């Protein structure tokens, strides 16, 4: 399964399998990139292991994304993080499936740059990151209603938000 993986990524996979064993839901490999799927309960443990283990040493969080897959009725949401290690030069994707209304612990303690990404994932998909220091809307107006990147959000029409010209004096 890992023929296309770099040596360092093979080490990463071996380390993760040794540490978490059967708790890793699935690992896929495509075009030399490794993606592992974990349970939401293991989210924090896996990621802090990725951050701190010497052979993994993922010191940078490239991005954190949300995703909405309504055809997956049990767990329609997904959170993906892209990790990069400057020490070893390898990358890793970690994803977790989420049910509607299910929380995920914040990873701002591991990578402070996750703060903006988690705010965006929350405002666009409604995925709550428990323990986030400042979970406010980032790109939409403060009084926006709804989560616009969900698949059931209307595609057309200025819905959910409004122009706050009354705020222009405070800007």
């Amino acid at each position, binding site marked *: 399964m890992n023929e296309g993986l770099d040596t360092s990524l093979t080490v990463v996979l071996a380390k993760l399998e040794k540490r978490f064993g059967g708790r890793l839901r699935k690992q896929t490999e495509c075009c030399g990139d490794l993606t592992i799927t974990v349970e939401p309960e293991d989210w924090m443990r896996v990621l802090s292991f990725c951050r701190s283990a010497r052979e993994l040493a993922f010191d940078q969080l490239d991005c954190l994304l949300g995703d909405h897959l309504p055809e997956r009725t049990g767990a329609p949401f997904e959170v993906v993080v892209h990790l990069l290690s400057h020490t070893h030069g390898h990358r890793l994707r970690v994803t977790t499936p989420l049910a509607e209304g299910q929380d995920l612990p914040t990873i701002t303690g591991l990578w402070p740059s996750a703060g903006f990404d988690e705010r965006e994932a929350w405002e666009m998909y409604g995925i709550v990151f428990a323990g986030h220091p400042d979970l406010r809307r980032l*790109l*939409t*107006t403060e009084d926006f209603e*709804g989560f*616009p990147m969900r698949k059931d*959000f*209307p*595609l*057309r*029409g*200025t*819905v*959910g*938000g*409004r*122009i*706050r*010209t*009354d*705020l*222009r*004096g405070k*800007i």
Partner: protein
Amino acid sequence: MGVMDDPLRRPSDAEVGAALQQNEVMGGPVRLPGGIALPVQIERVLGFGRSFSFWPLLFGLACCAIEMMALGGSRFDMARFGMEAMRASPRQADGMIVAGWCTIKMAPRVVRLYEQIPDPKWVLAMGSCAVSGNVWDTYHVVQGIDSLIPVDVYVPGCPPRPEALWQGLEMIRDRVKQSRHAYDGLRRIPAREVLLHGEPRP
């Protein structure tokens, strides 16, 4: 809808007349302190001078700003027409080029920048998004910037070529020479009208 229904309604003659009597209407001839209008000849000289030093606000919203920069660069070079000095402060600008789509979060900022530009001022809506919202009939894009501020010249395109923007600026220059503004005859700019009615309508 997040935008007002009919914000650019032209007031009737009676309304303008009443507003003129109360000296409330915007635009019109240049007036000295005390309300004395300048003679037309002097105003034309002023407009001629202004037309060769039109300084737009350094302000880009989206991809159209790249074409605006191309017009400022050496190949198209709007410095030839006295428009090269893009002012970073609205207090020093003569007008703004609304280059790109405006989100409803950005809209109050655009209105504030417009209000900070001293009169007389001219506005050019650049690109289909600033003109009408283009294909972005979505949750977060203002359907045409003219629902918020009075626009003098519309330059459609996605994005317009620098030549098109240049022609738009030439049309602005004509209006500068003639002392014509988009807000002539308006009693207030639309965004202020929203304020007068309290909460903007959702």
